[in-house]
């Protein structure tokens, strides 16, 4: 009968077409280390789930204090994250329009100061990378004192009332003599011919140069080619009150301040070859004092 034949052909067509159209490139998690690794997946769809990193801090007593420093980046109020990269959306004090393509910087020597002036020091340093706000690489176990992404944890904080926070932008001259394997493998070394040690910052992007797109590479480190070589920036942030009990300190990082004061930064003059440029290095050290400020403190209790 005609109707039966038609229905047969129709159902066969549906069967065959649904078989072929739904079975195109298989998407899934393609990382062999993930819990949900799919060996048949040909294209990663971002669904990978990883086991939680092991916590090496077996002696972590929850009665001891914990303060987390969180660094939030902006450019005179405009947020800066890797999703705002490569966009000419920022204007410096010198009226240069810029985009950002990289921001990596080193912080070390964290200290908390009590209201009575006593200070406590914390071990560790962190290489911040805006492009990796939460390290997606699950293969690294965080060491006790190592920061994660754009935060830095202060562990085992003594009981007390704290009034300010200090840290070093870069490494001071003692720390800069060290040999840090994690910084070495990240290619963070500063050439021996310029004093050795490590970079303090790599801040890069593009700027408009008479209508043409030029690049800038604002690399900060030892100011080797002049008398005052020590070039890290001691930062002290006041205006907060918190105690050791699970405080979160939100720190604003205003990148516009790298270009503003006391030295108005002309990118046409100072955009590359800045590492051996003594003037540029000292200007960075001076301007960098203004970049960090406390936004808020959230106290659990």
């Amino acid at each position, binding site marked *: 009968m005609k109707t039966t034949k038609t229905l047969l052909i129709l159902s066969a067509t549906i069967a065959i077409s649904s078989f072929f159209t739904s079975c195109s490139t298989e998407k899934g998690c393609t990382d*062999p*280390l993930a819990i949900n*690794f799919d060996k048949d997946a040909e294209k990663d769809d971002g669904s990978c789930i990883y086991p939680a990193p092991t916590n090496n801090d077996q002696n972590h007593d929850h009665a001891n204090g914990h303060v987390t420093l969180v660094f939030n980046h902006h450019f005179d109020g405009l947020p800066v994250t890797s999703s705002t990269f490569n966009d000419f959306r920022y204007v410096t004090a010198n009226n240069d329009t810029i985009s950002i*393509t990289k921001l990596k910087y080193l912080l070390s020597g964290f200290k908390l100061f009590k209201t009575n002036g006593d200070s406590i020091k914390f071990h560790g340093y962190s290489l911040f990378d805006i492009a990796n706000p939460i390290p997606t690489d699950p293969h690294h176990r965080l060491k006790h004192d190592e920061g994660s992404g754009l935060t830095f944890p202060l562990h085992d904080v003594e009981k007390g009332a704290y009034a300010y926070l200090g840290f070093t932008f870069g490494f001071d001259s003692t720390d800069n003599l060290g040999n840090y394997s994690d910084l070495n493998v990240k290619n963070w070394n500063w050439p021996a011919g310029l004093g050795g040690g490590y970079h303090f910052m790599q801040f890069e992007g593009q700027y408009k140069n008479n209508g043409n797109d030029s690049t800038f590479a604002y690399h900060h480190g030892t100011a080797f080619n002049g008398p005052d070589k020590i070039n890290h920036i001691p930062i002290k942030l006041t205006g907060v009150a918190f105690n050791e009990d699970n405080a979160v300190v939100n720190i604003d990082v205003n990148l516009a301040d790298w270009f503003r004061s006391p030295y108005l930064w002309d990118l046409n003059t100072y955009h590359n070859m800045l*590492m051996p440029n003594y003037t540029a290095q000292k200007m960075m050290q001076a301007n960098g004092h203004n970049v960090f400020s406390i936004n808020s403190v959230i106290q659990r209790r």
Partner: protein
Amino acid sequence: MTTTNKLTFVILIALAVFYSCSKDKDPVTPTPISTPPNNTSPTPYTLNIPTIFAQTLPAPFNPPNNPLTVEGIELGRHLFYDPILSGDGTQSCATCHAPTLAFTDTNQFSTGIDGLKGNRNSMPIFNAAWNFNNKFFWDGRALGLEGQAFGPVRNPIEMHNTWPNAVSSLQNHPTYPNMFNAAFGTPTVDSVLVVRAISQFERTLISANSKFDRYLLGMEALTPQEASGFNLFMDQQGGDCFHCHGSAGNPLWTDNDFHNNGLDATFTDLGLGGVTGNPADNGKFKTPSLRNLIFTAPYMHDGRFQTIDEVLDFYSTGVQMSSTIDPMMEHAANGGVQLTAQEKANLKAFLLSLTDNSFITNPNFQAP
């Protein structure tokens, strides 16, 4: 039409839709770590870490679900050199990744089993266990050595096999099932175990015994030309190479990161951008290590430079500006670092001091 026929059609259609892509609808179960059913476990193996790496770099990475064992490495070496993995049994991994050439070949583009050429230059294999980025291929599309090894076997322009076919060939082989049992505690071959074994072998491919390594360890002196070349390498106003290609502090001689080094003004190959979909990543390719250059010509992701001289000429006066040119290519607006002939000769002498002859003759790395 009868009710029975109507019902049959409905059932047929329902079954067809239900089974058509049951593969997509199955929950993905994690691959279990196999426990040996018999009483012989594989023998753990510890990598021999070169002194210069122990002094400067973090410990090499090994995924927890694929610990190194003597049996796993041996199986991996056999698989690496065995054309059984290819569709017609004519090509092994080693066909395009030869040990005497630091695990690459001499072609600009390699040819697969069907006579089809690829579009990217074969990459050398060494020190992969220190690639903490864990991204492989010129465009970083594979995660892990294990992830990378899945690709070539089923790539139509390379080994052009299917994994079920490859696994079946191995299963029916007189000795492989025993080797899989020794390495992984099961004689049942699986593609995951194949890539794990190959990856174990690849992790043992370590190269850190060049003249420059011995110089850094105080065991050998550089010639004045090599020393001058190294100074240029580290000088922003000289060759300006260190920001991507390492230093005495980073003897991998690569940052294992992705950059646009100014090869082209417009892109025919998007590189990393083709994988991430982000236009800011267009034209970016993985920084290769500068070790063993004498074995690994031609150079760049598309093998466009046949000699080191051509590479140095390019970085000197051939650099092109483009929308994603890396800001660390600080002389790009001038076409490059403008080296003199003498400077290029010195820089080349330094680069050649990174040659590790013991790597290409190491008996542990050769075909079984």
